[in-house]
């Protein structure tokens, strides 16, 4: 337990040192942006769209009983911006990329490729972890924004086109209750989740051992670690961000 967090701490330390002291590998980073960012778009947009839609449906069903159907738009948009967009996008990226990262790095570990890197005087953290980290920090806010956008669009489609709320009313309610602080809070979260995914997954990959089975275990654990970290950290972040970017804050 202690050694687990110790190792994570050491990895974060190595990452910081590598960021501060070594050149930036643009080619690797661009490659990772394509793999992580571009490759995850479909998954993330579908996730966003359907989450927004079910949320809108359930909110509408209950709120219309109380005559509050106009609140559907703001409820969906704030939930998507602050919680569901960043969390679900991050969980999808963790499932997709966290597993791929730990499997790739884990395989390199057990086939001595990591040792070969070290033997050639290349720091595995600088070569493997930093480009992935840079790529995910750039990709996550964009992916999250897409998820939020799709969620809001699908909820609009459902409430306006299917349930018949007048469009101007829906839009006006949504815009007057969704502030830029909500969007910023979500994007800040997404960047942090990206960091958690890369650190958790690369740590599992770099410490893989015992051949194919070990790589399999590392992969499973990477996804579980990332997902748990995202959910737990999200709760505390929600409390913190409510102080820094409160939802009642007036637009900047």
């Amino acid at each position, binding site marked *: 337990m202690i050694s687990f967090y110790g190792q994570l701490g050491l990895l974060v330390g190595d990452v910081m040192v590598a960021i501060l002291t070594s050149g930036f590998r643009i080619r690797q980073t661009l490659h990772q942006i394509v793999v992580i960012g571009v490759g995850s778009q479909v998954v993330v947009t579908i996730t966003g769209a359907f989450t927004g839609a079910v949320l809108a449906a359930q909110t509408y069903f209950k709120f219309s009983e109380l005559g509050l159907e106009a609140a559907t738009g703001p409820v969906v948009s704030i939930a998507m911006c602050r919680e569901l967009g960043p969390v679900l996008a991050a969980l999808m990226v963790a499932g997709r990329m966290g597993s791929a990262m730990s499997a790739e790095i884990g395989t390199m570990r057990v086939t001595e490729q990591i040792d070969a890197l*070290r*033997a*050639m*005087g290349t*720091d595995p953290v600088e070569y493997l972890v930093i480009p992935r980290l840079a790529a995910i920090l750039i990709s996550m806010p964009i992916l999250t924004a897409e998820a939020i956008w799709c969620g809001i669009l699908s909820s609009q489609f459902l409430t306006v086109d299917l349930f018949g709320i007048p469009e101007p009313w829906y839009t006006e309610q949504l815009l007057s209750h969704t502030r830029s602080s909500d969007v910023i809070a979500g994007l800040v979260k997404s960047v942090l989740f990206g960091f958690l995914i890369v650190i958790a997954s690369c740590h599992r990959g770099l410490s893989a051992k015992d051949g194919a089975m070990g790589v399999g275990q590392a992969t499973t654990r990477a996804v579980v670690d990332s997902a748990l970290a995202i959910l737990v950290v999200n709760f505390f972040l929600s409390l913190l961000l409510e102080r820094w970017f409160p939802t009642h804050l007036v637009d900047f």
Partner: protein
Amino acid sequence: MNLEPPPYFEIEDLYQAFDGQAVLQGVSFKVPRGRTTAILGGSGAGKSVLLRHLNGLLKPISGTVRVTGIDIGAFSERQLRSIRRRIGVLFQDGALFDSMSVGENVAFPLREGGERSAKTIADRVEEVLSLVGLSGQQAKMPDALSGGMRKRVALARALAPRPDCILYDEPTAGLDPILSESITHLIRTLQSTLHITSVMVTHHLASMRYAADHVVFMKSGIVRYEGSVSQFDQSDDEAVRAFLRADAMAISPPTSDKIESS
């Protein structure tokens, strides 16, 4: 004052264990500069583990490793980097980067060493690939190569940045006799023309006799013989004798019956 440069590697009283099982038990020996040193020993004797201590990939439990006179015991990964760039390594299983083509694998240490000119890199890659008999195979992926080819690509990768020392873990294992001879010849040539210091782990006595100047024989993590090649045959250490006897038997089987597997 001692004008003679220190040996390339000086190993003193090295101990290493994994999961409570001792692998190296007080290993000491020297690797003379500009010469080829062969490390012999049975399977599981700890040869590959020993080799990993020479460039600091593994840290010993106790004991010292001096590289060109410098004790690397307290060095961090970062401090080891410049030493490692001067030491090429051929891993036992090649350890090729399987996401890169043969050409990219061989070019990798050149790029990492700061070479930027694509032309210089391509020329050097072709040059070392032809040294190992794989000229023009740059575009192949490691997965599409035979075991012996992978080993030779790995050798080319180790040679590419012109290191002043190379650690070979079984350079000839898994090669046919003709290739095996040409690789042994290559190791000898590198030593005689470029004065590269070589450490060669091998089971292959013929290639040891041809290429090596200095021999270290290990058994169960202990050095049983260190000295010249000619005296190796005269050693009266029991483990060395057993090794030599087994090798002689492989060349001329004693009888027509099958050799019992132990």
